[in-house]
């Protein structure tokens, strides 16, 4: 499988994400630049890393969502291939419309950076099939705008279609609707989440994120 990590000005989790995939020894991993207009023909997954693309100016993810590479990513996603957005990547996917909703400023108004317990809400997707349903996992969070907001009509739709990927467990660090930490697209092939599984792929600090990166190849 070939994985492309998209780099924007201000991305800062691109190398972590690259290593998280590469470490599994299952994938060919490459970097892509936001000004590229075409994706490699043999790409299987496009990953958008965390960071502060374009300084979070205007709205988080808004300027990145109009970058030259985005049209290709939308076509790629619409052809049923995999897209993963973590943190700023999730914010960008929401701004492109590939995922419903938007990430607003944390209700505390503070940047929050800590370990966070999550619950796996759907263990039947290509990203999550190595986790157990309702399993508790520890992924770090580090964001200022992680407050997931969606209108009631869309919220009902994402519940009906089993699109909730992860929920914050035991506490809500940012004010997200229903403690939502990550969601899938309707076809469950696009995943966006605020927490950072790529920071939990070593035995020294924890391996809870590793199965997310391994599961895609199975």
């Amino acid at each position, binding site marked *: 499988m070939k994985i492309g990590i998209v780099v924007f000005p201000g991305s800062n989790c691109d190398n972590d994400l690259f290593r998280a995939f590469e470490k599994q020894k299952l994938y060919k991993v490459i970097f892509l630049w936001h000004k590229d207009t075409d994706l490699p023909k043999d790409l299987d997954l496009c990953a958008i890393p965390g960071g502060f693309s374009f300084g979070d100016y*205007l*709205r988080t993810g*808004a300027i990145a969502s*109009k970058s030259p590479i985005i049209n290709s990513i939308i076509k790629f996603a619409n052809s049923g291939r995999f897209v993963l957005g973590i943190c700023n990547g999730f914010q960008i996917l929401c*701004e492109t419309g590939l995922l419903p*909703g*938007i990430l*607003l*400023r*944390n*209700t*505390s*108004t503070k940047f929050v950076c800590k370990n966070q317990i999550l619950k796996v809400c759907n263990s039947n997707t290509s990203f999550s099939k190595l986790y157990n349903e309702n399993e508790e996992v520890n992924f770090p969070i580090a964001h200022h705008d992680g407050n997931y*907001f*969606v*209108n009631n009509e869309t919220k009902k739709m994402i519940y009906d279609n089993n699109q909730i990927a992860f929920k914050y467990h035991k506490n809500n660090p940012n*004010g997200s609707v229903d403690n939502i930490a990550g969601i899938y697209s309707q076809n469950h092939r696009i995943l966006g989440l605020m927490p950072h599984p790529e920071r939990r792929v070593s035995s020294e600090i924890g391996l809870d994120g590793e199965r997310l990166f391994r599961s895609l190849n199975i």
Partner: protein
Amino acid sequence: MKVRVNIILKPSVLDPQGQAVANSLIGQGFNNIKNVRQGKILDIEFNSNEVDMNMINEMCEGFLTNPLVEDYAIEEINM
């Protein structure tokens, strides 16, 4: 031509920044504060003197605001 785009969160969306400002004002002794909503202003200058309003709306709805959570108003500024 120059326009000013005023962007504000919809009334139904919680504005924690506005609330923090309101709380600070009250803490400073401005007791008559009922509520604060924080928005943003973009002043946009065009090359030509006549600009199609539909195009400005397209810019606002497709990029400058997220219609899910924000409202906007356009006003022309005399230079």
